[in-house]
């Protein structure tokens, strides 16, 4: 049960990553690798603020979001003002961020020992709410701190997802969606497509930075390697979500990305508990995304061939 709650919590936290990737990949049609750097950047900034400066976890976490936004803004500026290919801009910013993150952290790993983080807040809150360090859930004994953390993350992600959904229904949000769909049309209707893209990437990477900030606090350390391959992780979540919901509208797609992230983390947890070598995780994720990208087209091809054969 503890394992399940742990996997759930991580899945919910990384749903923010999935939402960020959804914005860049689905709305702007960019595979934005900045994500790999901005996730760590968010974690690093939050970690340093917590450990070195003793900042309140709420402010430190917000700083993680802002750090991510800054990374996204740089990527957006490279793409729009300097006309650098989207993939290459992502690679440049991600690579640069690796050094930046090392500088910010001062070393490759910061453990959050003996400092107040969202996790420690959850522990104190849990005792007040559930009246003890352990509590019963459907007959299972679980750590009330873990449960509180999960509930807190669910609330947070739920609120952000709702806010995002509402944003994409405003005039600005609609114009941003359209600028990914048909930039020529948006220009003709007076929309500044370049600024929309910069803002979109800032928002996307802000969410990713926030995911990094929360993840670091959940696992109690920030590590310079933690962002590696996370864009593929986000893509996998978005793709699973789409497959499950058949995503047509923004609202469903957002819900799908969250469900996809949670489910993907569960699958990974189950695979690991059955003895999957953790070193193979990224390979399997990449193969999974590859299959998800290629299979639908191949199935169409096969069914077309069959139909032709029948006729």
């Amino acid at each position, binding site marked *: 049960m503890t394992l399940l709650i742990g996997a759930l919590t991580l899945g919910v936290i990384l749903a923010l990553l999935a939402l960020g990737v959804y914005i860049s990949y689905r709305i702007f049609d960019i595979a934005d690798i900045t994500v790999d750097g901005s996730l760590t950047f968010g974690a690093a900034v939050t970690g340093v603020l917590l450990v070195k400066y003793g900042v309140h976890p709420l402010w430190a976490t917000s700083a993680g979001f802002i750090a991510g936004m800054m990374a996204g803004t740089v990527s957006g500026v490279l793409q729009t003002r300097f006309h650098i290919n989207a993939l290459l801009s992502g690679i440049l910013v991600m690579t640069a961020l690796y050094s930046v993150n090392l500088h910010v952290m001062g070393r490759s790993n910061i453990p959050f020992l003996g400092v107040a983080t969202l996790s420690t807040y959850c522990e104190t809150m849990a005792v007040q709410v559930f009246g003890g360090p352990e509590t019963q859930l459907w007959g299972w004994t679980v750590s009330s701190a873990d449960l509180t953390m999960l509930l807190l993350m669910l609330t947070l992600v739920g609120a952000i997802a709702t806010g995002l959904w509402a944003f994409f229904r*405003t*005039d600005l949000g609609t114009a941003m*969606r359209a600028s990914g769909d048909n930039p020529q049309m948006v*220009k003709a*209707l007076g929309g*500044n497509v370049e600024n929309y893209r910069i803002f979109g990437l800032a928002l996307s990477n802000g969410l990713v930075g926030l995911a990094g900030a929360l993840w670091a606090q959940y696992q109690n350390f920030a590590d310079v390697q933690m962002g590696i391959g996370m864009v593929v992780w986000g893509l996998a979540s978005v793709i699973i979500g789409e497959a499950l919901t058949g995503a047509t509208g923004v609202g469903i797609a957002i819900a799908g990305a969250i469900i996809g992230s949670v489910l993907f983390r569960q699958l990974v947890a189950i695979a690991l508990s059955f003895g999957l070598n953790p070193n193979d995780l990224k390979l399997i994720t990449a193969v999974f995304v590859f299959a998800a990208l290629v299979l639908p087209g191949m199935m169409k091809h096969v069914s077309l061939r069959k139909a032709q054969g029948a006729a």
Partner: protein
Amino acid sequence: MTTHAQASAVPQRPLVRLNNVYKTFHAGTVNEVRPMRGINLEIAEGSFVIVLGGNGSGKSTLLNALAGSFPIDSGRIELDGQDVSRWPEYRRACLIGRVFQNPFSGTAPNMSILDNFSLAAKRGKFRGLGWAHSRHLQDELRDRVRELKMGLEDRLDSAIGSLSGGQRQALTLLMATWLKPRLLLLDEHTAALDPKSADQVIALTDRIIAREGLTTLMVTHSMQQAINLGDRIVMMHSGNVLHDFNSEQKQRLRVDDLLSRFENVRRRELLDESAAEMLKSRYI
């Protein structure tokens, strides 16, 4: 001196004024094209100008230069009394409504009809955090889409990409004129449609322009459209205005006259026979 000034006094300032506009693409390469070679053109408020010309004559470039799709090399473009030569495309959108040749260019295919019109309702205006689908917009949209008689009023939530080219062009036209533009630019907007849809869209175009009294610049390949529509014809050739027929002259024009003008151009240019065939097949 005084009498001269009075004699040359213009009754109305033109809405559009192009002054010696030059544009060269791919300058200095083998692909160099010069679609604008010192174009001078004035368009009075409320006039409906048809722009004709062969491939590469610069007619579409003229429209794109007005819309601001690219920066011009030299010269000056005035719109509504303002020098817009250096304005980016999105900024000029507050004055200009556009319909493109390609039905896919004017709408966002994966978004609903309602989404698309909520964008059109903010053409050239600040887009903030206001709700895009206001009650008011939905009601007005349903009424105006019903006027199209295409049965789209009950499909406002379907993606525009699922509609036919003719339906999309009709909606794009409605979007371009949703907020009354100072200038409407139509770039061969029926060229990609089947004849029946093209006729429908042309009828709609004529109706909207007449009702709103829109100043319009319409590029077309169809001589028949050129004869039937508008009150002025501007014929372009190799980056400049070749002929300019005013309303009176235009009324006396027939398709054959226009064709013979093109024929003259052909002789002057000593185009080879195959190019002439190409022109003919396009224009007849």
